[in-house]
């Protein structure tokens, strides 16, 4: 609730032409929006480019922006549109002979990513295995909370459960993951492999 209130306040400030509100919206929605873009394009930097462009567009239109109750949903819609636009113009440049363009960007490339990554480092494989052992519900809520960066109000509403329940499910899931990874951590000191990519994000896609 608190977060919703802040983000609405920033929206109001953006309409008034406050440049700090623009930065605040970027920081506050960065994780949710970038991951949404990654899901569509598989390219984190492209997702960032598109997110920045969306904010610039909003800035240019700030005097005619509607009052929005769900800022996040509004931003997601803008980003989705922007990415489709980007992909189409890209395709047009590269294969100008191809007449029919797909309506939705393809998500197949993720499977390739997944298999390519899984063999790469021990920790990723272990985490993937641990993650698969979680229940569907646990996996879903972890995705919503950390990958999509939704707040508990949204999660509770979307899943038809109370905030308390959502909180407990996530807490238990994290505890389970931690315990399953404990052996690895003690054996090797848990060096963080540079998170080259988003193994879990890819799992989340298949939910």
């Amino acid at each position, binding site marked *: *609730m*608190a977060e919703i*209130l*802040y983000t*609405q*306040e*920033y929206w*109001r*400030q953006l309409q*008034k*032409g*406050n*440049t*700090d*509100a*623009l*930065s*605040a919206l*970027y*920081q*506050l929605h*960065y*994780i949710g929006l*970038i*991951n949404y873009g*990654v899901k569509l394009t598989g390219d*984190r*930097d492209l997702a*960032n*480019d598109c997110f*920045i462009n969306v*904010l*610039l567009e909003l*800035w240019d239109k*700030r*005097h*005619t922006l509607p*009052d929005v109750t769900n800022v996040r949903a509004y931003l997601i819609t803008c980003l989705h549109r922007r990415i489709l636009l980007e992909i189409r113009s890209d395709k047009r440049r590269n294969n100008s002979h191809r007449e029919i363009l797909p309506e939705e960007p393809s998500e197949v490339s993720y499977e390739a990513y997944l298999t390519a990554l899984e063999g790469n480092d021990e920790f990723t494989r272990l985490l993937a295995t641990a993650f698969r052992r979680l229940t569907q519900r646990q996996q879903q809520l972890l995705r919503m*909370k*950390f*990958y999509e*960066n939704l707040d508990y109000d949204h999660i509770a509403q979307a899943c038809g459960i109370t905030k308390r329940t959502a*909180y407990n499910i*996530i*807490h238990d899931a*994290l*505890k389970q*993951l*931690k315990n399953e*990874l404990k052996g690895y*951590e003690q054996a090797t000191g*848990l060096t*963080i492999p540079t*998170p*080259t*990519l*988003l*193994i*879990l*994000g890819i799992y989340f896609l298949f939910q």
Partner: protein
Amino acid sequence: MNYLRFKAEDLVMDESFQQYCSGTNPAAVRFWEQWLKEHPEKSELVKVAKTLYLRLNGGLDEDVFAAHHRQFSEVLAARGIRPGEQAPPAKVRRLKNGWGWYALAVASVLMLFMTTLWLQPERPAQQSTAPEDTRVAYVSKAGERKSFQLPDGTKVVLNASSTLYLEDSFNTGNRSLTLDGEAFFDVAQNASSPFVIHTTAMDITVLGTAFNVKAYRNDETNETALVRGLVKISLKSNDHQLLLHPNEKVIVPVGKTIIRKVKLISDNRQKIPEPAIDYAIASLTHIPHDTTAVELSWVDNRLIFADESFEEIARKLERWYDVEIRFESEALKQYRFTGNFNKENVQRVLEVLQLSRDFSFRFEDNHHLVLNQ
């Protein structure tokens, strides 16, 4: 928040910890870096939690964010959009016909209403601000405490029975607010926009720092206690200005109270005016076997009295437990106590105080207490 008892999964679920891992909130990053410095034994735990969180959020760590954010800033700069600025008003004024202003007024009243509603879920009917006051207000009732973040990223913990008003111009280059009550601030750094807190007796100007302000309307003094950074104090009574250093506090009387019994911490500080005492500077109070200063203990949910009169203590108890306390004996008000309480109820606190001095108390009902000799 007592993070010392947190396990890895608790850290992963903490919003400020998440912001520290992803680097998306400078205030959170500073807080956790400082915390790690103070608790080096927690570094392994933090590492586990951080690794787990960064996998779950899709690998968006501080480096990724920093690179992306730099790009964002560059694009803004290229377009001539500078942070901390208010863009000139639109060329087409849509508000000419009067309806726009009406809508704006409705929106701000709605905003205020929602804030009040959010801060006072149990008693929505209680209106704490005057109807014509359109400022955003954060309100806490007696016996409750709120922590939240201001739009600029500043972290605030609001103690019981307190109200914090955001001036309308907050975030448009002028971070100005008014406090009635007590709050702890960890101010987000923004050199182009000073952070100013107004209280009855003083104004406090800040550039990125952590400190406590105690300015209850019904207390005899206003206090500011500094943990780190530097703040400038301007006294309302005589325009006098002074700088406050870490681990110091300034005490300013409200009205005509005379300051007594303050411990001056250094001799080279000769600023204290002799004839009429306007203010006093003292070091933060520490009690034995405790690292947290007494002035800040409430943030950790602990109730501490350090050689305070029963009258002062009663006022603290009233706010802390949402009770009203009446003295049937004047002499009782002068009793002095020192004590440290963690999560006890008001009855238990009084029972413990009874161990050191003889007095009696009774409940008239849930909210009214009477003290006698």
